[in-house]
């Protein structure tokens, strides 16, 4: 399979695809999009995206990875729809270098917008081509043929032909070129429905699903002994005593401060890791600043910054004449995957094979090649699902460490499992952020001026293009030069309000903070929307307006107004509680989402119980309604946990949030009930939605707390102050 798939991007000449549509005619087909999805433009052959198998089923290729978001099912749905197959007749091959298209990262809620749409066009083009081939073979015009469940047959009855017979072992190598007639949406049987995911059936049986479940003959186990903090260097360790205590160790790998153990038995590697942790001596580190909460804010403000103007409109002169000013804060937060990161690596016959749950299998391949000194063609990375990651967690780092071990100990599959402490201490967190807002209201309660200043570290240090972004690159004897670099734009995601305000000034100040950071679900949008939507409530009160109405009056986009007005109808308030709302359009360009929360505050215990949360979401064309619901429900619950509980803590030495006791997240007794309404708009473009609820959920809770107890809390996590 590996070699036979290599040519899917190679040009083999272009066959013109005619307009034979079978069951529907071009006239009733949906209007053509002006542009094909970008992934399709880069991989423009049909067989880059799908193949017909010998048994007539279809295998679809995606450059994305299943991360629990249900993308595998959504992609199967669009393919099955265009080709009129049953769901069981479509299998989805997740990202693997050399096999699937290179679609970069599975991130930013973009998999539906890109991958699923590429598959849709490729499948539609395949349909057209298959109809044309069947027409020739059967000697019947395409208009008199129908396609169903992989068989093409004359409408009038008679001899039929299936996909596999038509292709006879060949694949469709035609370019997908506009115009590609898509199936009319009013004929959909699968898209827009709550098609159940089939992987849940396998999960409940304990079938192998995750990278952690991979087993290869002769596979061995490994653990890494990470330094006691970010900067410590390995001075020495007593190898002889470790070898004596653990006679079965296969290898102790040392390269600068990179220290790993390999053994046939996993428990032995864990014991050896512990022994080495006690035995190794490390250089004394530069002190981290022991800063949490308010002192961290002062520290951030004191750091040198690089300032960028994000948006400017009209005129604003300083803060003079502003009606209201407020400062909001969000601490460092961790991804906190339930399954710590894991990878399997094998170095064999000049090729490095890696199995990884990285969100960017292709970009990872390229930096791994640099890290271990091989040409990219000699590195083969297979994407295998892991535990939900919600952004850039330890997945790439553990893969890099496994790759280094494999180079040092070739010929065996090496399974490297990070411990809970490895993941908690070394994953790149979501940056702490400070948001200063001020605004002016006119006498009608309309916002005229809006000033927003934001302090943030970067929100993207994924390894793509920079080997220095991989954790072990810094541990090596010859460390890779260069600084960790990243995508800074994530900080000001949703920093600009979606409201109609004549004068606006939005600025970001970038700092280099004390902790390792990267992309966490929603990037800066979580904190920006928390600040903007809390502030909108403060302004609404000042203007003497109801929070729904105040927002609606400042919105021009009908779809935005609709999610808010629909939400009003869902919320049930109860005596002794407070309800709050918030709205955002994710990235100001993707899904619309309005969230409400009802909370109960116990002033004595200073505790907040989030009882119920509601969301209304408009993601344009919905592919799988249950998938969208599930993502939105989960997004609200996760965001509630961030908002109420979470803050990465550290002292002068290192991270002190080392496990679920020192970094608690929601348990069942804290989790709210959730209810989601979807506004499906089949005629509109499908919009990314997996991160849409994070920001509004936070602000809705803070606004509800204010209603419940009169305390406006602007610093997260949300703690009720001592009165």
């Amino acid at each position, binding site marked *: 399979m590996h070699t036979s798939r290599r040519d899917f991007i190679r040009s083999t000449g272009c066959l013109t695809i005619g307009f034979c549509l079978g069951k529907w005619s071009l006239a009733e087909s949906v209007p053509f999009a002006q542009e094909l999805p970008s992934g399709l433009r880069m991989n423009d052959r049909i067989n880059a995206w799908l193949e017909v198998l010998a048994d007539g089923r279809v295998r679809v290729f995606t450059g994305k990875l299943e991360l*629990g978001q249900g993308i595998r099912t959504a992609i199967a749905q669009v393919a099955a729809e265009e080709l009129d197959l049953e769901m069981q007749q479509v299998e989805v091959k997740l990202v693997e270098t050399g096999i699937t298209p290179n679609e970069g990262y599975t991130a930013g809620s973009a998999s539906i917008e890109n991958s699923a749409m590429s598959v849709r066009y490729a499948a539609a083009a395949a349909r057209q081509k298959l109809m044309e081939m069947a027409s020739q073979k059967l000697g019947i015009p395409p208009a008199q043929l129908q396609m169903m469940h992989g068989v093409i047959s004359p409408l009038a009855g008679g001899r039929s032909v299936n996909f596999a017979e038509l292709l006879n072992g060949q694949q469709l190598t035609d370019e997908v070129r506009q115009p590609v007639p898509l199936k009319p949406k009013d004929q959909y049987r699968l898209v827009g429905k709550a098609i159940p995911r089939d992987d849940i059936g396998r999960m*409940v049986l304990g079938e192998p699903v995750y990278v952690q479940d991979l087993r290869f003959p002769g596979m061995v186990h490994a653990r890494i002994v990470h330094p006691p903090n970010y900067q410590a260097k390995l001075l020495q360790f007593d190898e002889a005593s470790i070898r004596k205590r653990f006679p079965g160790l296969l290898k102790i790998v040392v390269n600068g401060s990179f220290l790993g153990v390999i053994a046939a038995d996993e428990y032995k590697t864990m014991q050896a890791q512990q022994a080495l942790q006690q035995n190794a001596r490390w250089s004394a580190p530069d002190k981290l600043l022991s800063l949490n909460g308010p002192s961290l804010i002062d520290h951030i403000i004191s750091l040198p910054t690089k300032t960028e103007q994000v948006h400017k409109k009209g005129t604003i002169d300083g803060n003079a004449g502003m009606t209201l000013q407020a400062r909001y804060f969000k601490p460092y937060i961790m991804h906190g995957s339930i399954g710590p990161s894991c990878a399997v690596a094998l170095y064999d016959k000049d090729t490095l094979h890696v199995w990884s749950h990285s969100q960017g299998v292709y970009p990872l391949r390229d930096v791994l090649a640099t890290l271990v000194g091989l040409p990219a063609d000699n590195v083969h990375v297979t994407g295998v699902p892991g*535990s939900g990651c919600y952004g850039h967690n330890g997945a790439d780092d553990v893969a890099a460490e496994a790759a280094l071990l494999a180079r040092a100990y070739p010929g065996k599959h090496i399974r490297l499992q990070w411990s809970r402490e490895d993941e908690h201490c070394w994953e790149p967190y979501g940056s702490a952020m400070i948001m200063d807002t001020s605004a002016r209201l006119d006498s009608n309660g309309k916002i005229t001026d809006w000033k927003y200043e934001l302090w943030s570290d970067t929100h993207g240090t994924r390894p793509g293009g920079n080997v220095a972004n991989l954790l072990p690159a810094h541990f090596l004897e010859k460390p890779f030069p260069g600084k960790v670099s990243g995508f800074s734009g994530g900080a000001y995601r949703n920093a600009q309000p979606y409201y109609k305000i004549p004068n606006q000034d939005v600025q970001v100040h970038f700092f280099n903070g004390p902790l390792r950071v990267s992309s966490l679900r929603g990037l800066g949008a979580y904190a920006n929307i928390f600040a903007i939507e809390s502030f909108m409530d403060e302004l609404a009160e000042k203007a003497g307006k109801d929070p729904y109405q105040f927002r609606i009056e400042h919105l021009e986009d009908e779809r935005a107004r609709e999610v808010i007005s629909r939400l009003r109808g869902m919320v049930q308030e109860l005596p002794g509680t407070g309800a709050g709302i918030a709205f955002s359009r994710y990235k100001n360009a993707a899904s619309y989402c309005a969230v409400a929360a009802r909370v109960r505050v116990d002033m004595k215990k200073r505790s907040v119980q989030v009882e119920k949360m509601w969301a209304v979401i408009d993601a344009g064309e919905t592919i799988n309604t249950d998938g969208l619901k599930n993502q939105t*429900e989960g997004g609200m619950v996760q965001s509630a946990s961030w908002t109420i509980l979470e803050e990465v803590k550290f002292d002068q030495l290192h991270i002190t949030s080392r496990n679920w006791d020192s970094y608690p997240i929601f348990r069942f007794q804290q989790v709210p009930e959730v209810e989601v309404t979807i506004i499906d708009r089949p005629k509109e473009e499908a919009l990314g939605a997996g991160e849409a609820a994070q920001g509004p959920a936070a602000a809705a809770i803070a606004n509800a707390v204010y209603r419940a107890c009169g305390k406006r809390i602007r610093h997260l996590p949300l703690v009720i102050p001592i009165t």
Partner: protein
Amino acid sequence: MVLIDLHVNGRVFHIDTDPATPLLYVLRNQLALNGPRYGCGLQQCGACMVLIDGRAEPGCMLPVQAVKNKKIVTLEGLANSNNHLHPVQEAFVQEQAAQCGYCLNGMVISAVSLLDQHPNPDDATIRAGLQRCLCRCGTQSRIMKAVKLAAAKMK
């Protein structure tokens, strides 16, 4: 290394192991079971839950020698021999009670144990019964629905 007889999913396995090895690693590595998962190794998350004499217990810190006379059931052992799902498994599929599903083992095993003790659990009882299990994807509301559905099925 010692030989230990381990009673898992209705069969007895003779296992050659360091008796201090936590049960989780024996189940995953020696018996090639995937149900019990590694999440924290600290009895904090519930990913590694197994039924020990019918009660849900985390297996990640439990030395294998401590359970040699007990009946252990893992996720794999819940379905009957024809792969006919246990009502709890069935309910999780019906409610689509997972996102990444990494936590699902702990949830299903805990729910089986809970329903054995409380056939008609109210919300508070379900929450208390699943309190040891963490889910980062935020699927808890579906999991609660699945447990209620399973209770109804088992009537």
